[in-house]
C-alpha cells in the first residue's frame, strides 16, 4: 500500500493548480488508488478533458495519457475501451478526468457510456463553475451560487448527476468531497467496478468560487448535500453487466471472415435482343414491391450478360406514398446513370402516376416509348398512349409491378422469359414461388 506523501504513479512535478484547488487532491487520491490496485502502468489510460482538469497528464509520467477535445473525453475513452475489451487483451483501465465543461458538453457521452455500461471510470471534478475561463456558471452551479456570470447568484438549480445516472441505469455512482479521507478507496472501487463508474467530486475553485462566495469546507459540504442529496457511494449495481460481455455473448469472436458461400458455377447467358440500351421507369406505391420488380428486371439483365443500373426513389416515410425505380440496361458499360428519355414507363398505382407526372417522365418518353399502366389508370392518360393491363385485378397489388415487368419483357422481347424466371429465383428469396406465379399469370404460357 502506497500512502506516502508521493504515491506511486505521481511524478515529481509540482501541482500546477491554484493553491487550495481540489484538483491536486483528486490527483493524489487517484494515484493512491492506482497503487492500491497494483495496476501495471501500461494498463492505465488517463483520458483528460479541457480545462484545469486537463493539466493532469504530466503529473502521471508512467501511464498512457490522452488529452482530448472539450467534452469528448468520455466518448474517446469509450471507443478505446470497446476496442480493448472486444478486440484486445481487455486489460485497459481507463480513467476519464472531466470538469464542469466535460460534464455539460459531454453529457450525452456520459449518459450513453452509462447506458451501455462501458467499463471505464469518470472522475467529475465538480467545482460548480467553469474555472479556467474565468469562473462562469455551469449547469452544475448550485442555486444562489455567485459566479462571474451570475453576480447576483445563480437562479437555476444544479443538475443532479445522481438522478441522471439513475435514469441511465448507471452501475456505479459516488458523490464525494475532494477532502474526503475515503476518496482513494472510492476511486479504487470505481476503477474495479466492471462497468461504467462515475465519481462526482465536489471541490472549491479557489480562483473564482471562493472569492465570489463566502466559502469554507463546511459550505462545500452543505452545497454538496443540498436538496437532501447524500454523500458516499449512492449506486452500486453489480447486476448490470458490462457492454463488452453482452456484446461478446451475442457476437462470438471468430478468427477472420465467415466462410464465403461456395461460388456458383458460371452459367451461359440467356439470349437477349437489346440493341443498345433500355431505360425503364417503374412507378407504384410503397409496400407494393416496386423495387423487387425492378431488381428482377435488373437481375435478368445480369443473367443475360448485360450491364445495368438500378435506382430507387421513395419519400422519407418509406411506408407511404410512391415508390419508384429506374432501371437502365445496356450492351456497353454504363457511364451516365440517369434516364433522360425513358424507353418504357410502367405505372401500377395512382401514387406512381402522380410521381411520374411530377417528374414529367411521360413528356420525356422517346417516340417509340412504351407505357404500360394498370387498367384503373388508363383513363388518366391520353387515349391510345398506353398499354392498359388488369395488373392489380388479376395479380395482387404487390405483384402488379412485377407483372408489368413481365409484360414489358414479353412485349419488347429484349430479354428471355426464362431470364426473368431465373432472376425471380435469384432475388425472390422465400417469396420466389409467389413471384414466379405472378410472372406466369401476367404473361401465361411463355
Amino acid at each position, binding site marked *: 500500500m502506497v500512502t506516502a506523501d508521493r504515491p506511486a504513479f505521481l511524478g515529481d512535478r509540482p501541482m500546477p493548480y491554484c493553491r487550495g484547488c481540489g484538483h491536486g487532491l483528486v490527483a493524489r487520491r487517484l494515484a493512491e488508488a492506482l497503487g492500491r490496485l497494483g495496476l501495471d502502468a501500461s494498463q492505465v489510460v488517463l483520458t483528460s478533458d479541457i480545462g484545469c482538469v486537463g493539466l493532469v497528464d504530466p503529473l502521471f509520467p508512467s501511464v*498512457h495519457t490522452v*488529452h*482530448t477535445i472539450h467534452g469528448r473525453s468520455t466518448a474517446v475513452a469509450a471507443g478505446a475501451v470497446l*476496442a480493448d475489451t472486444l478486440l*484486445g487483451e481487455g486489460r485497459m483501465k481507463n480513467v476519464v478526468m472531466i470538469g464542469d465543461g466535460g460534464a455539460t458538453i459531454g453529457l450525452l457521452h456520459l449518459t450513453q457510456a452509462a447506458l451501455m455500461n462501458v467499463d471505464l471510470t469518470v472522475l467529475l471534478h465538480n467545482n460548480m463553475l467553469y474555472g479556467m475561463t474565468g469562473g462562469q456558471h455551469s449547469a452544475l452551479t448550485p442555486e444562489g451560487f455567485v459566479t462571474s456570470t451570475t453576480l447576483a447568484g445563480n437562479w437555476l438549480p444544479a443538475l443532479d448527476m445522481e438522478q441522471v445516472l439513475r435514469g441511465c441505469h448507471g452501475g456505479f455512482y459516488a458523490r464525494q468531497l475532494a477532502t474526503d479521507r475515503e476518496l482513494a478507496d472510492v476511486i479504487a472501487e470505481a476503477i474495479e467496478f466492471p462497468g461504467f463508474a462515475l465519481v462526482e467530486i465536489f471541490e472549491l475553485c479557489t480562483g473564482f468560487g471562493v472569492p465570489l462566495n463566502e466559502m469554507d469546507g463546511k459550505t462545500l459540504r452543505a452545497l454538496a448535500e443540498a436538496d437532501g442529496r447524500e454523500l458516499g457511494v449512492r449506486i452500486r449495481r453489480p447486476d448490470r453487466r458490462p457492454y463488452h460481455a453482452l456484446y461478446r455473448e451475442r457476437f462470438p469472436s471468430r478468427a477472420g471472415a465467415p466462410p464465403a458461400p461456395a461460388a456458383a458455377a*458460371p452459367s451461359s447467358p440467356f439470349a437477349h435482343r437489346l440493341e443498345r440500351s433500355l431505360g425503364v421507369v417503374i412507378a407504384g406505391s410503397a409496400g407494393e414491391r416496386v423495387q423487387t420488380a425492378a*431488381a428482377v428486371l435488373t437481375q435478368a*439483365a445480369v443473367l443475360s450478360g448485360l450491364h445495368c443500373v438500378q435506382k430507387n426513389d421513395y419519400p422519407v416515410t418509406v411506408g407511404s406514398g410512391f415508390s419508384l425505380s429506374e432501371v437502365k440496361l445496356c450492351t456497353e458499360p454504363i457511364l451516365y446513370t440517369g434516364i433522360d428519355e425513358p424507353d418504357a414507363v410502367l405505372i401500377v398505382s395512382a401514387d406512381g402516376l402522380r410521381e411520374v407526372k411530377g417528374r414529367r417522365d411521360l413528356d420525356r418518353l422517346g417516340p417509340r416509348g412504351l407505357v404500360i399502366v394498370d387498367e384503373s389508370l388508363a383513363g388518366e392518360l391520353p387515349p391510345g398512349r398506353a398499354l392498359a393491363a388488369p395488373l392489380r385485378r388479376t395479380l395482387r397489388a404487390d405483384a402488379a409491378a412485377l407483372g408489368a415487368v413481365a409484360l414489358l419483357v414479353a412485349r419488347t422481347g429484349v430479354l428471355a422469359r426464362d431470364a426473368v424466371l431465373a432472376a425471380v429465383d435469384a432475388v425472390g428469396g422465400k417469396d420466389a414461388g409467389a413471384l414466379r406465379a405472378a410472372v406466369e399469370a401476367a404473361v401465361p404460357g411463355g
Partner: protein
Amino acid sequence: MTVRAEIRLRSGNQMVVEGALRAGCRFFSGYPITPASEIYREMTLQLQARGEVAVGAPDEISALCYCIGASQRGVKSMTATSGPGWALMIEAFQWALMTETPVVVAVVQRLGPSTGGATQGAQGDVLLTEFATSGGYTVPVFAPSTPLECFALTVQAFNWSEALRTPVVLLSDKEVAMTYEAVDLGALPDLPVWARPQAAGAGYRAVGFAAPDEVPPFAPLTGPLKVTLTGSAHNKDGWLRKNDPETLEVLHHLEAKVAARAGEMAMVTEDLDEDADTVVVSYGITARAAREAVRAARAAGRRVSFLGLLTLFPVPAGAVRAAVGDARRVVVAEENLGGLYRRVLAGVLPAVELRGVNRLGGMIRPAEILEAL
C-alpha cells in the same frame, strides 16, 4: 461466353463496406443519416458476424470519437455520415489529425445547405471536407464514381490513413452511394493492404520523427511504450509546449508528411486525345456524365479529352497539368454552385480558360456538358 456467377447488384455504399472489410477495418461506429445509412447497417451486420465491433452512437460526434479511441488502441476504424453529420464531426476530425490517429470518414454528400435534400445528390462538400481543418493542412480526400471505385478507394483511404497516420475522407455522393450496379465480386482488384508503422522500444518518442515528412511510429494504448496524445500544440514527447521550436516543427511535420506523398496519392482516370483543344475534368458521379459527353463530342468530330479525378486532395496537380497539356480550355463539371473544385484548379492551371458546368438539385446530364464544349 459465360456470365460469371459472382456478378451481383451492389450499391456504392455496399462496395465501401467491401473495401473497408478488405482493408482490415475491425471497428465501425455510426449514426444513421441518408444517404450514408446503408454503410452503417451493412458494416454493423458484417462486423458483428465476424465477431468484430460495430457500435451505434447517440450522435455523429460520439461515432467519430469512438472510432478515434479504438484507433488509438490500434484498431482500424471507420465511420460514415453525410453533410449535417460531417459538420458535427469536424472538431474530432481535427483532433485525429493533431494526434496523428488514423481513421476513415466516409462522407456521402447530399443536397445542402443545412438539412437540404436527404435523398438528393450533390457535390457541395468538396471544400468543406478539405478545409475543415484550421491552419491549411491537407486532408486526403478520395472521390469514387462507380461501385468498383468505391471498393478500391476505400481500401486506399485506409491505406493512406494508416501509412500517414492521418484522418482521411472518402467523399462519395448520393448517386454513387445509392445506385445499384452489376459488380463482378469475383474480379475485385487485389489491392495491397497497408498497416501503420509500429514503434519499437529503442529511441521511442511519442512523436518520433527526424525529417519532417517522416511518419512517427505508432504505439497503441496499453502497449509497453507510454502513449502521450494531445490536441494541444506539442513537442516530440507529446507535451503541450508554447514558444518551443520543436512544437512548430511538429506542426509543420503534420503537413509535410502528407504533402511529400502527394504524387504517390494522385489517382485519376483518363481518356485523352493528345491534340485536344478542350479537356473535361470531373469527379464523383458527374465524371460519368462527363466521360459520356466527351465520347459524344468526339463522335461529332471534336478533339476533347476526359480527366476523372479519384484523388481530390492532395490536388493531383502533376496529373492534371499532364492531362491538360497544350489544351487551351478546361471544362469542370460538378454539382455545386460556383464550381468548388474549379476554384482549386484555377491555382493549378493559371493560363488556361476554365469554364464550369454546374447544377444544383439533380445530376448533370451529358447534354449539358456537351453544350459547354
